[in-house]
């Protein structure tokens, strides 16, 4: 058996088999079928296929809907939990390494503030006490501290951030503070060791 070359009419056969063809299209196809044996044969095949495949298997839509509802509720609950966890991320869910960094930075800032206050109280003119220098940029062993300016005048990229504290964190310029915060954010993903680099500073070995 050959195929009719009138694709436009052949494409309408499934619609006719489903009883979904009306109007001018139906009239045109009826006229075509009256003269085309190939399309009549194809229509018979399509009708048989439609009859065989169109019966609807029984499924429990209510049960499926209930499962969907449970799944949706669980997903929404999980999404809410994740959002809440992200809000607490700055401390409560920080990694141990990040937590250690934050603690160390806080302690260093407090120590520096205390030292500065002590200096000011004792003798503002005493030049013997070097400023406390804390480097938070490199995981390698700290290099001996060298006297540096009290703080940088211009902001530097987070990867090069260097916290120099002659006073306290509150004395940092906004740009330096931004650099510090960015560096601390990077710690979360980049650091997988304890911040030993700060220990000499905290222990007064600098």
């Amino acid at each position, binding site marked *: 058996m050959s195929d009719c070359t009138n694709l436009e009419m052949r494409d309408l056969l499934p619609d006719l088999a489903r009883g979904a063809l009306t109007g001018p299209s139906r009239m045109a196809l009826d006229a075509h079928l009256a003269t085309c044996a190939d399309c009549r044969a194809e229509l018979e095949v399509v009708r048989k296929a439609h009859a065989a495949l169109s019966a609807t*298997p029984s*499924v429990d839509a209510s049960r499926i809907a209930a499962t*969907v509802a449970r799944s949706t509720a669980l997903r929404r609950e999980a999404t809410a939990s994740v959002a809440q966890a992200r809000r607490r991320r700055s401390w409560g869910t920080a990694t141990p390494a990040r937590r250690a960094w934050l603690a160390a930075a806080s302690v260093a800032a407090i120590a520096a503030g205390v030292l500065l206050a002590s200096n000011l109280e004792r003798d503002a003119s005493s030049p013997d006490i070097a400023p406390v220098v804390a480097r938070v940029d490199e995981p390698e062993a700290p290099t001996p501290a060298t006297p540096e300016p009290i703080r940088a005048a211009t902001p530097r990229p987070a990867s090069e951030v260097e916290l120099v504290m002659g006073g306290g964190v509150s004395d940092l310029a906004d740009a330096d503070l931004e650099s510090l915060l960015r560096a601390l954010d990077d710690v979360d993903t980049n650091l997988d060791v304890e911040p030993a680099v700060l220990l000499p500073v905290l222990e007064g070995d600098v």
Partner: protein
Amino acid sequence: MSQPTRDGEPSDAALIARWRGGDERAATMLVERHAPAVSRFVASMGERGELEEVVQDTFVRAFGSLDRFREASSLRTWLFSIARNLCRDRARSNRRSPMAVPIEETHAMTGDDPLSAAVATETAARVRAAMDELTETQRAVFTLRVTEGLSYREIAHVVETTEGAARVHYHNAVRMVKEYLDE
């Protein structure tokens, strides 16, 4: 993307909006509206023993990502896409013929006349056997065109091909089924 509303029923778009607003009844209405078509399609793709599980997974997946549904196609077309992917995954993992279905499980439409019923059952079995000779894509295209009445454009979206390629798949499928039934 809206399905035509019948008897004043809300459209798919309206139900999706209600569901996004937390109305779980809207999800139930969508499932009840589309489950029959999805189950027909899944059955035609050869999944019978675990048909309801596949249909259920289709809806769970669909609602799981409904927030990202951009309505570029109809919801029903999107459901067919998900169902087809599930059927393919299961066919791959099970490594079995997707049409290996006991004939007595077929749900052919039969009349009251026992002889007609027997003929219809026999014809249905032969059609299904013919479908077994088709490729997975041909089977999907043929089913969606003949049973669900989707346009070639919609079918192309489901089987991830072009409209022209979908038409070719359909006509090849018709020819193969016809030849099988003529044997």
